[in-house]
């Protein structure tokens, strides 16, 4: 087995662009079922070797006239289809986007978008109902993700929107959401937590105390 083939397989199956560091990490810890000389050899592959293998794959694809190529995006590699196939592939893309979000899911997404980072308890506080199923859907679709833990008792998970979310709605960052500054300041009658006290923070990921129940 060649390193080149293994990297092709990894890029083929990956769900997102992979940086060299991550490819290296994947090579370093194969499942025990693959405990052989081959897997041991790949365990120590250097980033430079991985990089070379990717270059060789690129050459292969060009020479063989493959329908896809390797693209490097922000230091991460992924396979993308060749542009000349776009007239047909567009149809597949439309189909992909045809999945439906339920209204509860949409509302939950909106709350997370405008109030991130936010805990599940706070989302439920706003919506008045449990959001387990809906959160599952949003997480599975890659629209929201866990961004950290709130520094409050129990250290609950904090949720925020993802890059996919931005891509999906054509936003370059979260501050492009309509009326974001105003709406972030609106007091949501959360049972426990108080309204955020920092109207000057337009970026959602830093210093967002919305989830901190200060002196409740």
């Amino acid at each position: 087995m060649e390193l080149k083939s293994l990297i092709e397989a990894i890029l083929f199956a990956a769900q997102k662009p992979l940086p060299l560091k991550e490819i290296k990490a994947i090579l370093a810890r194969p499942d025990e079922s693959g405990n052989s000389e081959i897997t041991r050899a790949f365990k120590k592959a250097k980033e430079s070797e991985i990089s070379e293998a990717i270059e060789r794959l690129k050459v292969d694809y060009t020479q063989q006239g493959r329908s896809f190529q390797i693209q490097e995006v922000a230091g991460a590699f992924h396979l993308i289809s060749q542009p000349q196939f776009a007239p047909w592939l567009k149809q597949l893309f439309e189909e992909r986007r045809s999945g439906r979000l339920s209204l509860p899911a949409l509302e939950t997404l909106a709350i997370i978008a405008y109030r991130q980072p936010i805990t599940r308890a706070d989302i439920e506080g706003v919506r008045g109902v449990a959001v387990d199923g809906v959160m599952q859907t949003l997480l599975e679709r890659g629209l929201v993700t866990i961004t950290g833990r709130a520094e409050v008792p129990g250290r609950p998970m904090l949720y925020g929107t993802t890059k996919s979310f931005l891509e999906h709605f054509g936003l370059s960052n979260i501050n492009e959401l309509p009326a974001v500054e105003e709406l972030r300041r609106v007091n949501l009658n959360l049972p426990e937590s108080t309204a955020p006290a920092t109207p000057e923070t337009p970026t959602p990921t830093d210093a967002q105390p919305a989830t901190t129940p200060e002196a409740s």
Partner: protein
Amino acid sequence: MSDYKVQLDEVFEGPMDLLLYLIKKNEVDIYRIPISKITSQYMEYLDLMKMIVPDVAGEFVVMGATLMYIKSRMLLPEDQQVADPEAVADEMDPRWDLIRQLVEYKKFKEAAEDLQQRELFQESVYSRQQQGLGFDTPTEDGPSLGDLSVFDLLNAFNRVLKRSDAADDLRDIFEDRFTVSDKIDFILKLTAVEERTSFSRLFDGMASKTEIIVTFLALLELIRLRQLRVAQSESFGEIDIVRVKQEEAAAPAQTEGGETEPGSTSGPTNP
């Protein structure tokens, strides 16, 4: 002892399985089962099983009885075995039913092994398609994700705000000189003249960001109340504000007309 129990339970799925095991162990032809030998071995196993698992499955006992019966038939003198002189002698072989059953079972056991191989294969391959993002299976009824825009998000958030009685707070935030209700009046007047107005025209001459936002919120409110809807004749094209005819507005759950394309800005689909 307990290890042994686990082993027996796992190894033999049923009496047929045990019989096949004995046949294989003795290296005998399945079509010529040495019934005496197999029966005694079977009974030994059965006794062993009874010792380990007191409530050994009834099927094992029944099979034991069947074997004993066949054995006794086989012991009869040959002329007494054939009851029907018309029949071929082999057809009357008392082992026949059992053999037929065993052969059949063996085939299916092999087929099951084949399935297991396939299962293992499927487990070790990864499709580019198994994204699991849920896009392929429509979950519940609701707006199509592809049709959603940031406005839908804003609208959804607004609904939440309304429900959490935060509407008062919302109003307090904006400067007094611009209120949502004023802007509602403004938009209604504008669209009363023309049925269709361009989205950008709504904001003509507005310098204040707050005013734009308040106008926008007013627009959303009107859409929510089904007084207006947004339409886009082509992707990335100009967004139009269309006055909803009264009969249309009265109809519940009226959704967008055919003008909007997937991916374009669509009106709210909330009930």
